[in-house]
């Protein structure tokens, strides 16, 4: 896996965690009631970690990430069985099957999301 994709994946997972905590009821309620989580402090810690990871992105990747993040929730999409699960369009066969290509930072030709190949 490309190191920058690993960073992007972590940012996305942390943002998902943050969104869940921000929603009234649901995840926030479970975290407060079952785990006695201090939600405001947790949100602050998540923001800090996201910012730190964003700083680990190479400038060109970061610019693309920021451009995409302003318009869509998920900038990384899983590619499963040759399909981008961001836009549900088939990924180019050469990208989906070539292992060396899969280890580089690839994105969907259709929606532009970074692709994470799930085997």
């Amino acid at each position, binding site marked *: 896996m490309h190191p920058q994709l690993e960073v992007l*994946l*972590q940012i*996305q*997972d942390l943002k998902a965690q943050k969104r869940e905590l921000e929603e009234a009821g649901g995840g926030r309620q479970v975290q407060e009631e079952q785990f*006695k*989580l*201090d939600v405001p402090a947790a949100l602050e810690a*998540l923001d800090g970690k996201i910012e730190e990871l964003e700083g680990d992105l190479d400038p060109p990747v970061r610019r693309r990430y920021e451009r995409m993040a302003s318009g869509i929730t998920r900038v*990384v999409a899983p590619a499963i069985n040759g399909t981008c699960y961001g836009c549900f369009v088939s990924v180019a066969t050469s990208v989906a099957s070539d292992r060396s290509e899969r280890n580089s930072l690839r994105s969907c030709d259709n929606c532009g999301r970074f692709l994470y190949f799930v085997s």
Partner: protein
Amino acid sequence: MVLREFFDKDVVALDLQGDSKDEILKELIALLALDEKSEGILFKMLKRRENLGSTGIGRGIAIPHCRSLVVNRLRIAFGRRKAGVEFKAIDDHPVHYFFLIVAPPLEVSNQYLPVLGKIAQFAKEPQVPERLAKLETPEEFLALLEEKSV
């Protein structure tokens, strides 16, 4: 939906060996049989969740959990460490029983939070820690879930 649906004996380990939170998390992750890179990412995510506040809910039970794109469906595992591990649980007691829950950021069936809630509910059932302590096989664990009908 009942918890039993999400478990099979391959994701139940009654003899965890770890002596620290990190070691236990790694053993639990290994039960999911992911690739090495995914295991590493998942470990970091679970650690970050633990850093926000322990998932040790008391009575010797912890429910480490997170969402991550490294899984494409809800995954659950159960592990037991008879000696107990310091987990910074809310009651400050060592943790013996671990339920790992990982779900993708977006789930079609939206099972993550209900399952998290059900495991917390199961943990509060009378006699559950005592019954978990006496388990001798993964099949007995699955039978306990069925018996409790959570």
